């Protein structure tokens, strides 16, 4: 690792309001964007709550052709890619296409479109041998999720490496980490990187129902996502996207770009334990955190804010609390820690990138977003989770973590430009 990598543009499509500004306003207000599922009738499902995005593709600048062609996840990715490009002040013509790449994280890609097409092809499940006469030309792009990266590459005119990173619920962190590595090693100078997922569809809701991972708190949807609270009983499914302009630091400086921060460190590990279960000690997550801090040459006591995975399942919140204690020591009890999933839910592969956006904006604004719905902490979660109200707090170094099915544990550290080597 050698070259420093800066974040110079942010684009967000999140529940509660589209765009970077609406997203940050929601987080600072401590309001929640979780509600009863409106995309389909959820009455037959155990968990009937989700954080949905009120997304109007036309208002987000998508052309009629893009609206027809693109699955919802791709629409989110393209809209947030355009916003991050505009935010960074990058005109497309200034980019060297060969030195610009794309990475998009997604856990389940075109699920929503696939399920919609399935119902047509199978006549609502009647046919096992589905009817090819009804095949849509857009089905293939929902079938193979790399279409997300292709659409973003076309949108921004990138001709460097492009790919989809699909490591389940850590995809959003790993996609940005992958992009960081490509810039740091010198393969490219600019990456348009982030993640998009739109899993609020019956099959996704049903599969999380089956393992009882999502909350059944259907009578109180606004307060259903309750990370670290004693009464938490599962996560709230969500959708969303965030994309960034990542730039080699000198490249950004040479054009006078605004730098939100630099990616000081990133690491990922596997627990090799269970596809959905976590060992309570959080050991592998701790290892990822330690490596990220080491890369950033950051003493743990200098972390000003921790953005937790904080999904609101019983096992996760204890797992990562243990990892914070193992890596940050006494400082774990002093540093503000929060989970924005309490407000925007858990958008699977997208949330890691949405959380990085929250971290960069926390540095920018000197404000730490709260953990909403936290009224009585689980005695085993005994750290400062910034309950319910945002807090003014200078942030020069931030740690964000993620944990996902398959055993993936990832961590990223953002620091100030001045600390970059």
């Amino acid at each position: 690792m050698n070259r420093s990598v800066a974040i110079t543009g942010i684009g967000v499509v999140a529940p509660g309001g589209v765009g970077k500004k609406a997203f940050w306003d929601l987080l600072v207000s401590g309001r929640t964007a979780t509600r009863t599922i409106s995309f389909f009738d959820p009455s037959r499902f155990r968990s009937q709550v989700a954080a949905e995005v009120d997304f109007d593709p036309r208002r987000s600048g998508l052309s009629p052709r893009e609206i027809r062609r693109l699955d919802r996840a791709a629409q989110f990715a393209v809209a947030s890619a355009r916003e991050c490009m505009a935010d960074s002040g990058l005109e497309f013509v200034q980019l060297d296409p060969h030195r610009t790449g794309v990475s998009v994280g997604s856990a389940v890609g075109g699920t929503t479109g696939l399920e919609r097409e399935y119902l047509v092809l199978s006549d609502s499940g009647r046919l096992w041998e589905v009817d090819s006469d009804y095949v849509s030309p857009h089905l293939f792009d929902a079938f193979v999720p790399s279409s997300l990266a292709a659409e973003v590459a076309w949108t921004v005119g990138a001709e460097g490496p492009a790919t989809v990173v699909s490591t389940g619920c850590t995809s959003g962190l790993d996609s940005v980490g992958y992009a960081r590595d490509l810039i740091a090693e010198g393969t490219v100078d600019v990456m348009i990187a982030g993640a998009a997922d739109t899993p609020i569809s019956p099959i996704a809701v049903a599969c999380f129902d089956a393992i009882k991972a999502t909350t059944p708190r259907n009578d109180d949807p606004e307060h259903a996502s309750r990370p670290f609270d004693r009464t938490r009983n599962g996560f709230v499914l969500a959708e969303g996207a965030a994309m960034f302009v990542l730039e080699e630091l000198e490249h950004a400086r040479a054009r006078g770009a605004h730098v939100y921060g630099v990616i000081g460190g990133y690491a990922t590990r596997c627990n090799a334990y269970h596809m959905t279960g976590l060992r309570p000690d959080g050991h592998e997550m701790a290892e990822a955190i330690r490596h990220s801090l080491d890369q950033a040459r950051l003493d743990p006591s200098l972390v000003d804010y921790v953005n937790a995975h904080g999904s609101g399942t019983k096992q996760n919140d204890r797992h990562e609390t243990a990892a914070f204690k193992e890596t940050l020591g006494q400082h774990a009890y002093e540093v503000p820690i929060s989970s924005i999933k309490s407000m925007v839910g858990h958008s699977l592969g997208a949330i890691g990138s949405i959380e990085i956006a929250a971290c960069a904006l926390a540095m920018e604004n000197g404000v730490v977003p709260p953990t909403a719905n936290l009224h009585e902490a689980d005695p085993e979660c005994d750290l400062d989770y910034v309950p319910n109200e945002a807090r003014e707090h200078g942030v020069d170094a931030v740690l964000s973590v993620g944990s996902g099915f398959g055993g993936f544990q990832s961590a990223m550290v953002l620091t100030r430009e001045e600390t970059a080597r």
Partner: protein
Amino acid sequence: MTITLNDLVRVLTECAGADEDVALTAQKLDVPFTDLGYDSLALLETAALMKQRFGATLTDEDVTEIETPREFLDRVNHAAAQAA
């Protein structure tokens, strides 16, 4: 109708596969499922199939708290009796 150990073994095998090393027999009624190689997902899947086959609904708490085959049979038969 009582749900027997044989019923449980059949459903467990369907839901979570078989493993000859730790076959579930009457001698192992009190051996924890985890020691028999069945994890929480296996029990969730087994509970779901029990509901389909026998109409016996185990609550979330039941499934979380059950540790051994004997406990599973006690609770699922209790539930079946209530449903009947």
